[in-house]
């Protein structure tokens, strides 16, 4: 065997031995136990401290408030949404007190009007809605109520009702357009209310010769809209003029 090969062989074997030895020493203990990672990392991540205690923790001490909230419109809103992370408070209830936001700026984070919010979600214009008065003056944050308690159609069709309430059709009762049999309340899917089935129905108010207040937009019922029923293009619960 040529001299070069033996010499190089020695050098390479030495390097390989050093590599393997160093590697044995340096690979972390728990590496590869569960997968191609340090199993101990999972434990240290799992051991990180909590900031948000979770609503169950609050309920243990603040039972009356929790019960009130649990049957209110805020039943799905957990305590720490408004009061902030409270794990420290749970650990030391006497010394650490979570904040309770009372200023007007806070509630509009959810309830301020924003066009991108789902229609039907209760929203107000923070500037025009009872200026300067803290929200708590009229609404109990643990059991907030809208001005009208849902009932009748609204009890089930809340989203439509809220939407209609801010539309040009706000003052029209549902039964103006829908004929709902009483049995609909008992078996809503088998006995459905009807919808206007002719263009003339909307024409009662919107036709050019209709006897209705003059601010109501008018169309020529016989030619407008190429024979579609009105509600196939317009949404009567929130009609737009365009």
């Amino acid at each position, binding site marked *: 065997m040529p001299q070069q090969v033996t010499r190089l062989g020695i050098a390479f074997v030495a390097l*390989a031995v050093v*590599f*393997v030895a160093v*590697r044995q020493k340096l*690979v*972390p203990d728990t*590496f*590869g136990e*569960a*997968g*191609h*990672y*340090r199993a101990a*990392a*999972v434990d*240290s*991540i*799992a*051991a*990180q*401290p*909590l*900031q*948000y205690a*979770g*609503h169950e923790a609050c309920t243990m001490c603040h039972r009356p408030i929790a019960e009130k909230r649990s049957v209110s419109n*805020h039943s*799905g*809103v*957990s305590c*720490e*949404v408004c009061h*902030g*992370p409270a794990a420290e408070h749970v650990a030391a209830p006497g010394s650490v007190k979570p904040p309770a936001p009372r200023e007007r700026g806070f509630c509009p*984070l*959810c309830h*301020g009007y*924003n*066009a*991108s*919010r*789902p229609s039907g*979600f209760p929203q107000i214009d923070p500037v025009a809605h009872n200026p300067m008065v803290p929200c708590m003056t009229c609404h109990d944050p643990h059991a907030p109520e809208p001005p009208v308690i849902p009932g009748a159609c609204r009890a089930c069709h809340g989203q439509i009702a809220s939407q209609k309430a801010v539309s040009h059709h706000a003052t029209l009762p549902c039964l103006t357009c829908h004929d709902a049999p009483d049995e609909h309340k008992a078996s809503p899917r088998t006995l459905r209310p009807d919808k206007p089935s002719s263009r003339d129905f909307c024409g009662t108010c919107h036709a050019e010769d209709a006897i209705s207040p003059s601010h109501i937009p008018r169309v020529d019922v016989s030619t407008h809209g190429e024979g579609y029923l009105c509600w196939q293009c317009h949404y009567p619960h929130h009609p737009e003029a*365009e």
Partner: protein
Amino acid sequence: MMVDSSTSLDREPTATREPVDRRDFLWEALKASLGVPIALSVIRVPELRGMQAGGDAEHLYGMGIDIRKCIGCGRCAQACKNENDVPDEPHFVNTWIERYVIRTDGEVLVDSPNGGIDGFPPIEEEGGTLRTFFVPKLCNHCEDAPCVQVCPVGATFITDDGAVLVDEEYCIGCGYCVQACPYGARWFDPVKHVARKCTFCYHRLAKGKVPACVEVCPTSARLFGDLGHRANPLARFLRFNEIQVLKPHLNTKPKVFYANLDGEVR
């Protein structure tokens, strides 16, 4: 919305996987046909299967997000920063909210000022709006996570229960995972000099609690649960909604599921 911890044998099919997946197979084939360089054979590489989610774990975590319920209040993004020690500045986030405004002329405007934490300014020219909605985003905890695939040292991984985590003591800070994530969910911690991301609040799950963003979502737009069990809010969510995931064409198999997702979202 408790995390179900009962050990039921009744699993949904998602939890069971074939023992050899395609990547495994390709690798074996490559190894057999080419012969692996000597360097590789010296290295003890544990079985690939350990990296796949599922297996014998008790849980397989996932999240459901209903776009129609999101009001864009940003409480989730704020809670995440509080819970997970995410610096306020610069504006890195584990979870954020995007606002989409699709105008009648077809133009799509998207914004997410400070991740949505401070709310959203009013839309300009509301009249020209065709559709508008909020979309909460976070790490999708992909079953075939590109970030885990590219990590050179095994510092990021999928736990048996399906969470994609980063080992901050082992991460070398190369940033390859940041490049590989199609969702922009990873960021580089300017203080710790390692990659960071959403953990599904793994430390909270370990204590039987839901992630902070789910805890504080006031409209239950976010749901958390276990894909391996039938009786939990997520399973119900998946039964009663048409479900979409983000960027399905990339085949990352996300475990964050969206209901009522618009086609413009990406």
